[in-house]
């Protein structure tokens, strides 16, 4: 803080690669996407996508920093959407009950994931793959049982609509963008400023040593799993309120999209390294790439290829930066 500026110190931050990547992508689409891409309405287009993805990507990224993975978010998005729609749409109960139920289910699934990961030594990829399928099955089975349909409408009015599923700032930006910015600020505080964050990094670096150092690793694992699945349920719930309807299908794309954003954001898949700001940049980068293509004249059929190449490029760049970080020595003349 009080030090003078140093390029070395900047380059070895986890978000350095992500920031560069974001910059490159912005320039690219500013050139090929034309002026609409950077107008407020164009910006809103990728910010909205980034917001929905980002609310899930940050807690997922924290899990990855802590050395775990959560695939089940892919089922939690439709679960959250369906819960609020069934309770407040199908049964017509107050919207707050639907919201509370959606979030509670997020907490419950998170607890189940956390419990299974802690008790059995099974890798969390496998555990959450299991809960992914199980939750998908529950959502489908219960929805059809209750509503005889796989698509449920929901009409929301008043405060809840404004808070969770409306457009703000000139009617272009989803209110989710505000949630995303607020949550990101909170996460930055907790992960990088409060002591709590240090624990997450320590856990991802070496779980046994972290426990021996007095960190409550089991409780922390629980908290992180609850955070990620509740966030996914929250996003699903907000989407249902915004789009006035929920489908049983979908949400699976969030799994890979969030992982890509996190990795592009400079988090190490094996744990112990990363930053919230990096994930934030990674999410925006991903959103720009997937949305930016609609502003260009490229053939839409190539978008998957572009996403794949972007991912590989970003990962290689992050790798380079991480090596720089490790071999960094403060003095130029120093031995």
């Amino acid at each position, binding site marked *: 803080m009080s030090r003078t500026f140093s390029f070395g110190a900047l380059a070895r931050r986890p978000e350095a690669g992500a920031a560069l990547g974001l910059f490159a992508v912005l320039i690219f689409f500013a050139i090929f996407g034309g002026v609409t891409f950077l107008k407020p309405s164009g910006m809103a287009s990728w910010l909205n996508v980034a917001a929905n993805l980002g609310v899930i990507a940050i807690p997922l990224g924290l899990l990855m920093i802590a050395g775990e993975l959560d695939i089940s978010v892919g089922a939690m998005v439709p679960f959250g959407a369906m819960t609020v729609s069934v309770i407040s749409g199908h049964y017509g109960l107050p919207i707050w009950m639907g919201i509370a139920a959606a979030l509670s289910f997020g907490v419950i699934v998170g607890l189940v994931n956390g419990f299974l990961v802690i008790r059995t030594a099974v890798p969390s990829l496998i555990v959450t793959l299991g809960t992914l399928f199980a939750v998908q099955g529950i959502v489908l089975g219960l929805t059809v049982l209750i509503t005889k349909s796989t698509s449920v409408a929901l009409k929301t009015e008043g405060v809840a609509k404004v808070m969770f599923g409306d457009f703000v700032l000139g009617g272009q930006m989803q209110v989710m963008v505000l949630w995303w910015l607020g949550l990101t600020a909170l996460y930055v505080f907790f992960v990088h400023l409060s002591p709590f964050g240090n624990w997450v990094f320590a856990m991802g670096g070496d779980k046994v040593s972290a426990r021996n150092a007095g960190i409550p690793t089991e409780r922390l694992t629980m908290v992180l799993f609850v955070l990620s699945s509740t966030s996914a349920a929250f996003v699903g719930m907000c989407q249902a309120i915004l789009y006035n309807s929920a489908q049983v299908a979908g949400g699976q794309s969030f799994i890979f999209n969030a992982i890509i954003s996190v990795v592009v954001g400079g988090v190490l898949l094996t744990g112990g390294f990363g930053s919230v700001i990096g994930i934030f940049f990674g999410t925006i980068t991903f959103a720009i790439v997937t949305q930016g293509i609609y502003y260009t004249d490229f053939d839409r059929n190539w978008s998957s290829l572009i*996403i794949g190449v972007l991912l590989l490029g970003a990962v290689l760049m992050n790798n380079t930066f991480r090596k720089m970080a490790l071999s960094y020595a403060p003095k130029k003349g120093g031995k």
Partner: protein
Amino acid sequence: ADIAVIGGSNDDAFWNIIKKGIDDATPGVVANGGSVNYLRLVNYDNFAPDVVQLIRTAISMEVDGLVIPNWVPEAEDPAIKDAIAAGIKVILMNAGGADKATELGAINYVGSDEYVAGLAGGEYFGKGGQKNVLCINTLPGASNTEARCKGVIDGVTTAGGMGAQLPLPTTSFGDATAVAEAIKAELLKDESIDGVITISAGDADSAAIAVDQAGKSGKTLLGSFDMNQAGLDRIKGGTQAFAIDQQPYLQSFLAVSLLAAHIDFGTDLPVFPVLTGPGIVDASNIDATLAGVAKGAR
């Protein structure tokens, strides 16, 4: 008669209405000592092989009758022929058409046709004066969704307009915001787009927001294939122009009843093929439709 019906994915709303038709036809079959087994795809990821696998499964169950959509003729035809050779009576439903039924030796065809349904949608746009229509395909590469969009484009083109397909990458499948923002981006980029149609009812929820966000409500008409409650609410409220309905309830209800009667009693329906659609739901018939929806049949 023991009857197997093959249908689309579990989480596909359309195929749950089909299920309602089957469920309503089942008591009649059971009353005559038969059974109905509804075999459904788990997902559309490995489409043709999975469908054929289901046909083979049905054959192995030694059913008497088979109701099957002929989605991928090249792949399914040999299996359907095997079924008929094994003495199973077949009705094509939902996809295939009369010519195909005759060619294969199926006893009838009940349904509409993805392409014909698309054509009807395109013509509806054409009649409304729409000149530039975008067909949103969130499952590019799957033959049924491709046929829908192709029909729309052809329909608009014959009516003197033009159309294009927007294939979305798998990264946006199931993410309502990503779909909405993609549509909005296209609308912003190309001011002349005055019609949008989505391949599923759920995507229309996103498209409605996209049209609104692009500031083109009233200027850009929205249509969808299939329908859900939210879509019908929009039609009633005037923010969506129409939905193309194949009346799936009729397809399965009629197919199962006709087939069971044919096997059990030797009846034959002189109507060939039995077309259940496409029906267009718009402001003119929305109230009757909503009544049917409440009962899970539309």
